[in-house]
């Protein structure tokens, strides 16, 4: 899918929507007050200075003094209005960024898993993340900040332009033509910057990865043992050089634009001075008028420069905003036509009809024409060599992946028509990668906010999972924070304890379908066998699908499916498969022989 880009105007409209949403109609009078006061602030200085010079040249110091005093008073009022408007408008930009951050997090949590997991999704997320986490000077905040600035400058430009035009229309035409040329150049340069940024982002991604990996304590054992420090530092240095190359390349473009802007400004000022001095020489204008008009031309230049600066800042940040909005609109679940209904929490039948799935960029399918029916309360085991397609099949059944060919049905309803959040509720899944969040143990088990947690149910589940004893020994019991990421007093769980935690989470979910994707891979055979006994007892009246490398662990299943190259090549109970003397039996015997040898050695 191609990256979406938006015009600057589109971004401005997008942000105006935010302004309106959070501030209501009151933002408009405040913005008008700020803009009027800002323009007046600039004009008053020139007008009063010109008037003061007029009275001074006429040697009427008293009048000049009155004018200066009047100016000071009026300036205070105008500056107060400007500050008030500024505080009301700018003071909240941080909060807007926080709300964007919330939107980003929500999208990450709710977007389609397959899209999120894809290389494209990962790239988009990484690019969008910069918009949120890169501070006040990067991404949306400068764009937001520059919207009122741009409005103010445009109004100032129109006012000053009228004054310049009243004196010499050609001068005004020149000013506008240079403005247009500069706009064109700025736009061209922004496009060039976007292209550079694309390349630069790739380097940043690698660089961030290296930075994080170096400080990851989990890697330190290997880094120390293999003396990988030099390799890491050299890689960082190399990437730094590459990043600096792109930074320099981008900056050269902006320097070029600056030179053009200075050149046009020089010509404009030269012409203005020449014209107005000639006018004075011919007696058409007085010195105070000359000062006023020169001030207006300079002011006009100032407004234009600020407009360019605003546009430039916005254009610089446009690619980052593009990335953000591209990600926010990427991988959204299409809810149209999702009218399929299933009885929530009841027993289900799952049927796969000629399902095939190929990972993006791969030619060989990971799941190839699989047809399968799993009845309610049936216990299924998926076994096979590494890369046979077991985990992919699980992800398809769970609804995390969508098959490219074939259909999956739950109780006869096509799962693509069932809203994802309803479908997911029917599964308790324990995946291969066991991990805890750096929140409280209670949060980890329930995955709910404290107000919704059922404490008694949680304790029952922890007891059933065999973790309650350990929890009772923890300093804060159920409220103990797991991991050290957010709390120095956080508790680290061992591999076995983590498995139990995952089991407790699955039990708490109490869904009618239980899926266990090699959750015991890190355990020794005896601990694994005990864990499976527990799983078996808790899933008696539920449909359950087990994946395990150790074939002995899944002997209790009603049906064992042996997968090879994405296809089910053998199917049946343990006994029937052993009788077949096929691939399953061979694998089982090899494993049995290995464990017997281990036993003898022990």
């Amino acid at each position, binding site marked *: 899918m191609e990256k979406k880009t938006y015009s600057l105007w589109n971004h401005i409209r997008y942000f105006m929507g935010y302004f309106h949403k959070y501030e209501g109609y009151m933002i408009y009078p405040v913005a008008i007050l700020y803009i009027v006061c800002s323009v007046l602030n600039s004009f008053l200085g020139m007008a009063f200075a010109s008037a003061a010079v007029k009275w001074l040249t006429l040697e009427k110091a008293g009048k000049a003094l009155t004018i200066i005093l009047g100016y000071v008073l009026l300036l205070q009022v105008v500056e107060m209005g400007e500050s008030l408007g500024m505080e009301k408008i700018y003071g909240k930009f941080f909060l807007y960024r926080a709300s964007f951050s919330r939107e980003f997090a929500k999208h990450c949590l709710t977007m389609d898993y397959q899209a999120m997991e894809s290389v494209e999704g990962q790239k988009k997320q990484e690019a969008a993340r*910069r918009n949120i*986490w890169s501070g006040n000077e*990067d991404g949306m905040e400068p764009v937001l900040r520059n919207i009122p600035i741009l409005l103010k400058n445009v109004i100032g430009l129109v006012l000053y332009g009228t004054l310049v035009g009243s004196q010499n229309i050609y001068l005004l035409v020149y000013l506008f033509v240079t403005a247009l040329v500069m706009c064109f150049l700025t736009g061209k340069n922004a496009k060039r910057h976007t292209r550079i940024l694309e390349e630069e982002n790739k380097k940043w991604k690698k660089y961030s990865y290296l930075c994080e990996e170096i400080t990851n304590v989990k890697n330190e054992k290997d880094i120390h043992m293999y003396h990988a420090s030099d390799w890491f530092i050299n890689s960082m240095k190399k990437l730094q050089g590459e*990043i600096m190359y792109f930074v320099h390349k981008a*900056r050269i473009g902006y320097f070029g634009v600056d030179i053009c802007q200075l050149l046009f400004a020089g010509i404009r000022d030269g012409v203005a*001075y020449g014209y107005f*001095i000639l006018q004075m020489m011919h007696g058409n204008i007085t010195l105070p008028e000359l000062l006023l008009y020169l001030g207006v031309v300079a002011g006009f230049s100032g407004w234009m420069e600020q407009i360019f600066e605003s546009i430039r800042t916005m254009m*610089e940040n446009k690619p980052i905003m593009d990335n953000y909005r591209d990600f926010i609109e990427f991988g959204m679940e299409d809810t149209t036509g999702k009218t399929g209904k299933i009885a929530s929490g009841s027993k289900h039948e799952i049927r796969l009809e000629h399902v095939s799935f190929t990972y993006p960029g791969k030619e060989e399918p990971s799941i190839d024409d699989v047809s399968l029916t799993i009845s309610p309360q049936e216990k299924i085991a998926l076994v096979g060599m590494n890369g046979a397609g077991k985990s992919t099949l699980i992800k398809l059944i769970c609804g995390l992946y969508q098959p490219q060919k074939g259909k999956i049905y739950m109780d006869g309803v096509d799962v693509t028509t069932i809203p994802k959040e309803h479908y997911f509720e029917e599964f308790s899944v324990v995946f291969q990668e066991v991990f805890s969040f750096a929140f409280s143990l209670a949060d980890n088990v329930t995955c709910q906010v404290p107000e919704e947690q059922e404490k008694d149910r949680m304790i029952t589940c922890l007891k059933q999972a065999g973790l309650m004893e350990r929890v009772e020994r923890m300093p804060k019991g159920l409220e103990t924070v797991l991991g050290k990421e957010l709390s120095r007093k956080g508790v680290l769980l061992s591999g076995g304890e983590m498995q139990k935690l995952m089991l407790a989470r699955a039990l708490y979910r109490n869904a009618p379908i239980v899926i266990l994707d090699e959750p015991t891979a890190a355990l020794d055979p005896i601990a694994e066998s005990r864990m499976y006994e527990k799983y078996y007892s808790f899933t008696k009246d539920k449909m359950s699908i087990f994946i395990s490398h150790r074939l002995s662990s899944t002997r209790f299943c009603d049906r064992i499916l042996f997968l090879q190259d994405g296809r089910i090549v053998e199917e049946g109970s343990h006994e029937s498969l052993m009788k077949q003397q096929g691939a399953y039996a061979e694998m089982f015997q090899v494993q049995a022989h290995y464990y017997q040898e281990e036993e003898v050695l022990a």
Partner: protein
Amino acid sequence: MRKIKEKWKTSFSYHEYGIACLKIAWRLDRSVLPVGMLLSIAGVLQIYLGLFLSSEIIDTLLREQYQKGMVLAGILVGTNFLLGIGRARLAMAQKERNVKLSLSFKQMLREKVLKLDYESMEDAKKWENLQIMNCVPDSREICQR
């Protein structure tokens, strides 16, 4: 009195941090501070020369020496142009150096991490510091300025 003392203490500690940061910046890249100072000087110089030449032009025009006024106006425009180019070049150099400095700072911290022995890395306090280290804002922030 105690409040004033505390305020002084806080203010002093801010300056202490500031000076420590400047020292690090100086150690990592000796050109960052001079470039920043040159940029500031160029900015002030442009303002000062602008004011000086403008007042000269007004005086000249009051004396009705229009040709001299024209010459002075030319000098003003030329000075603004040249100083503007100088400032733009310095600003470019400063922005690049800021990014480089930020990258060098990150590298310096990580070189330190890699020199730590494994045992002290497992220490809870160190662990926390390492997590914080990854929260240091991206250099992109400076790059975009």
